């Protein structure tokens, strides 16, 4: 396998962009990533494009007005992990020598999807869905169990949101940039107990793109690259037996594969993007991704280890996370890689993590009854 680098990164701000469709957003992200890489757009040999809601041939619609057509374009979907799926294909296409320069693009318009009156009815064989199971409820049940097992409180959960807003306030690409207090978080509208609205990631539109290439190509471009040391994608296991819901097996399996592939461990990682769709998730991922022991997530958070500042160990959700960015399904996985690229290059402005050498991006999701999650991706980047 050849070494693989990200040499260009671009994205749109995340938020409600009901005036633009996903392909407009995707086109903007591609344009910025190409300009950032300093590559001629005609040198891109393939595009891997993730989108969940758009229907047919989204990648072709993203690339066409930029004249980046004729090349191999593959449209992928893997629920919340769609973006990392595109990145995984881009990585392997270059690592195995199929291509020297490709792009991974994620794009999504969720507000547009809503306008079209899309049905959100569960599949007919999704018994849990028919009986009223919703995604916040599943994470809420994890939270209830975690609180019972380890004595975490509603205030502890709210602190995750408070921290994410602090980070988001420093990020011009974030949707919610206001600071919030524990009291405000807990006073917001109830969604699924113990979660209030500010503990759940908001609807968002957005797009992100990266140029992925071989070492030779990077040197030829004279671009400042970030190396992809691990690219892992796995699916959830189907089971219906009792298990500990505070230990998301799929994420544990994916991250361990990623650490092994990169030859790195949590001690080497200074930045983590995780699937913090709900506050409890970040606490669980401190533990599952190996940054503290089981049950010590609250302690890790309260110590400041996950936060920009003097006590930082591995800063989680420095973009503001899904909680403040929102989660445009197809876009998120690529947007995480864009942030990692900027941070590892030292280009993250006010929210820069000093001296960063390695970043981990984790994403998981997709409600398929009987599965932890449909798919989980982990990528590790270094400079």
């Amino acid at each position, binding site marked *: 396998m050849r070494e693989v680098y990200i040499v260009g990164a671009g994205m749109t701000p995340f938020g409600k962009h009901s005036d633009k469709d996903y392909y407009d957003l995707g086109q903007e992200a591609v344009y910025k990533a190409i300009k950032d890489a300093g590559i001629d757009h005609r040198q891109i040999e393939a595009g891997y494009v993730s989108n969940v809601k758009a229907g047919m041939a989204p990648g072709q619609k993203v690339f066409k007005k930029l004249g980046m057509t004729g090349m191999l374009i593959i449209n992928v979907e893997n629920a919340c992990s769609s973006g990392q799926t595109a990145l995984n294909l881009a990585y392997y296409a270059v690592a195995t020598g199929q291509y020297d320069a490709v792009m991974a693009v994620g794009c999504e318009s969720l507000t547009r999807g809503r306008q079209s009156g899309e049905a959100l009815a569960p599949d007919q064989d999704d018994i849990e869905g028919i009986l009223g199971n919703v995604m916040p*409820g599943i994470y809420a049940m994890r939270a209830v169990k975690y609180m019972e097992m380890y004595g975490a409180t509603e205030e502890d959960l709210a602190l995750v949101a408070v921290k994410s807003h602090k980070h988001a306030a420093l990020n011009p690409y974030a949707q919610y940039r206001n600071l919030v207090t524990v009291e405000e978080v807990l006073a917001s509208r109830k969604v699924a107990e113990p979660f209030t609205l500010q503990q759940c990631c908001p609807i968002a539109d957005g797009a992100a793109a990266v140029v992925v290439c071989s070492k030779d190509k990077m040197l030829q471009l004279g671009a400042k690259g970030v190396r992809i040391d691990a690219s892992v994608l796995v699916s959830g296991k189907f089971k219906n037996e009792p298990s500990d819901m505070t230990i998301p097996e799929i994420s544990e399996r994916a991250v361990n594969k990623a650490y092994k592939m990169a030859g790195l461990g949590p001690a080497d990682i200074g930045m983590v993007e995780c699937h913090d769709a709900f506050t409890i998730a970040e606490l669980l991922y401190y533990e599952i991704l190996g940054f503290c022991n089981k049950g010590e997530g609250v302690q890790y958070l309260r110590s400041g280890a996950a936060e920009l500042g003097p006590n930082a160990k591995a800063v989680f959700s420095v973009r503001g996370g899904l909680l403040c960015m929102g989660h445009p399904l197809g876009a998120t996985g690529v947007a995480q890689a864009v942030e990692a690229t900027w941070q590892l290059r030292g280009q993250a402005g006010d929210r820069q993590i000093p001296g960063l050498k390695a970043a981990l991006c984790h994403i998981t999701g997709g409600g398929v009854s009987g599965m932890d999650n449909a798919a989980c991706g982990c990528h590790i980047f270094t400079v």
Partner: protein
Amino acid sequence: MSEKNAAVGEEVDFFHPDLFVVPENGEAPYLMGYKCENCGKVWFPKLELCPGCWSDLNQIKLSRQGTLYSYSVIHIGQPGIKTPYVVGYIDFPENVRIYGQLEIEPDKVKTGIPVEVISGVVRTDKVGNPKMISYKFKAI
């Protein structure tokens, strides 16, 4: 008892004969599991073959009682279910975990309590009339 499928929108009760039995003679309702002839593992809901070893499965009657593993009170739920409603995962002695709505008051629900399967309304129409009947769980 109707076998129509409410997921496609008929204005009728829902009752899934492969999952849930409400005996006509008035005996207590129960859920059905599917046990592998080869490896002995029990599955719920219905499957055609054992995902583990691709062997045949036999229908079995599951225990009527289990233990509430975790729960949540849902305030923003699925259209067609009046909020707030309480949901949870129940662990059964046959080593299966089953999701369901709980007929337990929000302030009474807690992890670890024993619960029992019952028949009840799981979806209502816009004016609150029953639209779907299926299994639910109550505290014992």
